[in-house]
């Protein structure tokens, strides 16, 4: 791998990036250039199997994912980055389970051997795109590139499940905060709403729309309660479900939500001074145009700190 300045990673884009989540791919490339992130696409990578392959036959599912790990390791990568949470957790889980279960490792490598490949678990560190932005570039590094802060845009960071669960260790499993801090860095007003790590329904849209639409409704309802202008996601599946099914939710429940769903990379691009077109805004079904007009040039006034109510009992401090 080249020794250019900046951070270098093996890059696993995932199937969605090429079509449904094209906006994620375009905006990721755009911010990567600005932040000095060098994403080297694994050549001839294949699908991670989503949540489906593991449901049918686990060993081929592990082998399917492991082919990507083997290819990336073969190209000399030490870290591999996935922008999609589902791809991320599949790559992460395969590496982890091969490491913890020698029997699985042996079987997967027997299968890989049929394609003249081999993967030694722990060779690669599997990371999510958000992880490298907040930890490798860091909030200060991001702040240094902000030219058009997103003042007064009320952003609801939506983490979904798989970036924090089951055990990726990257943020709190129940109440993550990394993207909140990132959005603050961009100048946005962060909406701290309770459902930020709840499920978008995943593949349930294909199996039971009753279940799926209710899960999507809850998220939109909660974000709307907290007056979010826009929901920001880290996963193509979450974006698709909240965006493409928002009209169905409105129809089913008689609601009138209009909350655009953008990728965190898209709003980063805006804060870095790019045009909406540069970061593929316009591909979302629920248009972000109206929300983006809320951005102002001046920062919001700081809310006055209210004096403590004399009668109120003290609240415990939060632990970081």
């Amino acid at each position: 791998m080249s020794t250019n300045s900046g951070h270098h990673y093996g890059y696993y884009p995932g199937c969605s990036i090429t079509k449904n989540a094209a906006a994620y791919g375009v905006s990721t490339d755009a911010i990567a250039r600005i932040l000095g992130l060098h994403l080297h696409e694994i050549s001839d990578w294949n699908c991670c199997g989503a949540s489906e392959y593991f449901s049918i036959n686990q060993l081929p599912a592990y082998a399917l994912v492991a082919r990507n790990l083997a290819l990336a390791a073969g190209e000399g990568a030490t870290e591999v980055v996935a922008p999609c949470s589902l791809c991320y957790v599949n790559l992460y889980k395969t590496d982890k389970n091969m490491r913890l279960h020698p029997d699985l490792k042996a079987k997967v490598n027997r299968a890989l051997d049929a394609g003249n490949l081999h993967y030694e678990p722990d060779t690669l560190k599997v990371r999510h795109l958000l992880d490298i932005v907040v930890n490798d570039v860091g909030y200060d590094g991001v702040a240094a590139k902000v030219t058009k802060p997103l003042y007064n845009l009320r952003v609801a960071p939506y983490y979904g499940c798989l970036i924090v669960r089951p055990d990726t260790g990257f943020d709190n499993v129940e109440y993550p905060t990394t993207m909140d801090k990132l959005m603050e860095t961009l100048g946005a007003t962060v909406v701290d709403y309770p459902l930020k790590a709840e499920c978008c329904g995943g593949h349930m849209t294909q199996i039971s729309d009753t279940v799926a639409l209710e899960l999507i409704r809850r998220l939109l309802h909660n974000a709307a309660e907290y007056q979010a202008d826009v929901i920001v996601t880290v996963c193509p599946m979450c974006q698709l479900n909240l965006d493409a099914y928002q009209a169905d939710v409105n129809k089913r429940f008689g609601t009138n939500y209009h909350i655009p769903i953008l990728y965190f990379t898209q709003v980063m691009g805006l804060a870095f001074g790019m045009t909406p077109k540069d970061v593929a805004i316009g591909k979302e079904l629920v248009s972000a145009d109206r929300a983006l007009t809320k951005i102002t040039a001046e920062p919001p006034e700081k809310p006055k700190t209210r004096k403590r109510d004399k009668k109120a009992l003290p609240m415990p401090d939060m632990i970081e």
Partner: protein
Amino acid sequence: MKTSNGGNSFLDQVIKATPGGEKLVLCLQCGTCGGSCPSGPDMDYSPRMIFAMTSAGMKDQVLSSNTPWFCVSCYYCTVRCPQEIPITDIMYTLKQLAIQEGRYEQRKASDFSEHFIGYVENYGRSFELGLATRYFLFHNPLKLVNMGMGMGMSMILRGRMGFIPERIKNMDQLQNILDKAKQIAKEGAA
């Protein structure tokens, strides 16, 4: 100490097929999983009941229930379980066993999975449009019309759905790997 699980071969089967599955025997029946589950209210049995039924050897009822198929894979149960049972992974195992045994009675969910991996096994990539049409043709032709007219059309207009599936270059290599893996899996099950 030796554990035989009272000759309950179904319980043993589930444990064996799940990395970390041996913790299943520790279930306290506390219901944290069922209480956490986003789709819990729509399941035939809560995950907790599925584990009690698995312990009781009720293989037919477990494998024909919709519970594992309604799992959205959010892992809330797994991170909250006080006995650290890998619940979501056990749901994956139950889906796999249900397909192997041909027990699942509502074919919808398993068919979706099978259609999905059909593309993966032939192209190396998933294919959203093809999947949507093939799957809904099978189950809900009317919905396909809806999709074409409504959301699906919007997706196509915004260039978010391709018409031709992409194929990886070294498809032979992937197929060899998958064939070998399936063969190893079969050996293991036998």
